[in-house]
């Protein structure tokens, strides 16, 4: 296989030339990997939900809907399901607004732009577990600097206990997730903003459109599908994640911040009941499917431009 390879090596050359042969061969390893370690485990997870598999006794026996009966009777499961939904909807709503604003900062030109961009992207580029550790310290019950500032300004008498009260703990978890997802969503929207043809922007400029008119009559309608994709992507990363909850609250106080993934972990790995853990995690599936369909639709809309 060198530059001087004579075209005489027909036997090898034809095989290495035939697209009908190369295309599937090139694709095969990736497809095998995905089928073996994503598709089959996914089916296995569904099968586990109808079985009695535990860490201690991994033999597979069909038990029908017993796991589902058990989790439907479990108030913590319902709490986790509700929390997951609340959590996703609120952080999505916040992400749309904040990410759009952040994207407009990222696209503008100004001095020290690289520094601003570096700092703004930190929440997303930092491994989530370490970012959560940083927030655990920000929200510490005694030494939280937020509390210190509020105390110094005279807004509060004693500490807030961010992670110790139901609503506040939930709000904290949502805030940390939003903080982490907004930069990613902003970068996706940025990609959409860059792709707006310059002549449309110029035309709006020449027509004398002001900032808000340009925003609502040009950029928002043109980037709506990409904003949708960014938000849905963020939503999927948010409601399937358990690391923020695991590190900040472990689902507490008293399951106030328990979400489906963290509860599945608690049951499946923590107490070793793989079957019940799988049954809980399975409830992520309809949410995922809805998100996937919505993303596909937005992408289709984008292609019509």
């Amino acid at each position, binding site marked *: *296989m060198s530059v001087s*390879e004579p075209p005489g090596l027909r036997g*090898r050359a034809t095989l290495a*030339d035939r*697209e009908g042969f*190369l*295309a599937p061969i*090139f*694709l095969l*390893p*990736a497809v095998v*990997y*995905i089928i073996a*370690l*994503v598709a089959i485990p*996914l089916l296995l*997870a569904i099968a586990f939900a109808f079985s009695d598999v535990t860490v201690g006794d*991994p033999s597979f026996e069909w038990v029908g809907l017993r796991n589902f009966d058990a989790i439907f009777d479990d108030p913590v499961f319902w709490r986790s399901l509700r929390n997951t939904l609340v959590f996703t909807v609120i952080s999505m709503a916040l992400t749309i607004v904040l990410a759009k*604003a952040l994207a407009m*900062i990222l696209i503008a030109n*100004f001095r020290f732009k*690289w*520094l601003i*961009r*570096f700092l*703004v*992207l*930190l929440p997303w*580029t*930092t*491994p*989530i*577990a*370490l*970012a*959560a*550790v940083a927030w655990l*310290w*920000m929200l510490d019950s*005694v030494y939280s*600097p937020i509390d*210190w500032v509020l105390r110094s300004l005279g807004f509060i008498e004693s500490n807030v206990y961010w992670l110790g009260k139901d609503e506040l703990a939930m709000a904290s978890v949502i805030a940390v997730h939003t*903080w982490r997802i907004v930069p990613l969503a902003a970068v*996706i929207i940025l990609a959409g903003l*860059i*792709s707006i043809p310059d002549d449309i922007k110029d035309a709006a400029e020449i027509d004398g459109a002001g*900032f808000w008119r340009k925003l609502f009559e040009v950029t928002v309608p043109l980037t709506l599908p990409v904003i949708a994709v960014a938000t849905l992507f963020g939503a999927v990363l948010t409601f*399937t994640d*358990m690391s923020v909850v*695991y*590190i900040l609250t472990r689902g507490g106080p008293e399951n106030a911040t328990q979400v489906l*993934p963290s509860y599945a*972990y608690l049951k499946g*790995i923590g107490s070793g009941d793989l079957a019940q853990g*799988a049954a809980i995690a399975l409830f*992520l599936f309809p949410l995922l499917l809805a998100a*996937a369909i919505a*993303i*596909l639709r937005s*992408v289709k809309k984008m292609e019509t431009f």
Partner: protein
Amino acid sequence: MAVSARAPIAVADSGHVERARRRTTVRRRAGRAGLYLIAVCAALVAALPFIWGTITAFKRDADLYNSENNPFMFNLDPTGEHVSFLFDGTSFLTFAANTLWVGLLVVAITLAVGLPAAYSLARLNMRWSGALGISIFFVYLVPPTLLFISLTRVVAITGLQDSTWSLVLIYPTITIPVSMWLLMGFLKAVPRDLEEQAMVDGYSRLGAFTRIVVPLALPGIVAVVVFAFTLTAHEFIYALAFISPSDAKTISIGVPTELIRGDVFFWQSLQAAAILVAVPIAFAFNLLLERFITGFTMGAVKG
């Protein structure tokens, strides 16, 4: 364009044009000031935990654990002892070595499997290649939280439990789909003509791919290497579910589980660890951000 548009105005320099222009200038300046203000606020909100973490890392215990002290200032002289404790007194270096080792192997597997597959979808004629491309992308949406329970069994059956090899085996399921999407974008950006010219010159299709397309797509491949590596460094759930001995842990699970022992938090060392990992990754990302954007957008373009 800009020059030709401005020239006629300069000629017709009457009073009201001048006033209109001044009004726009004022509005522009106000806009700029607003932009700077929002940009600085956004940067502060984004970076606050890290800024405070950096200060914390160098604080003495007596300074840190006094809730009356200003948390943003050094009320006592700063000290480096907690940063050195991170290296001498904890397994941080082992975690870092494990993260690097797993990351590099996973990146190698990802490229070996993903690069030919991406080329196949981007360039070779095949039925279903469009649909396959989209479905590969959706594999990325199947979350670890849905798979970790059954994969725990898979890992136990293969006997890789508590070993970093379990992560080497499983992480490519996360990195291959994203990397394929990015690589498809970068491969499509290589002009078809060059490839066809190479084949006219006597290369086989395979030869054209390895000798012409891959070198030309190298900047994109570098971006994919960085992206895939950071994905492995970010991963938390699989590592938490598969690995319990501390000498096999990665940074992502080692730092939060080993530096927090029951009620004892090594706060300064924890923050030092977070900053030491966050800053280099953020630098790499910022350097390659434009390339990531190009790759993701191009991946959607029909080849």
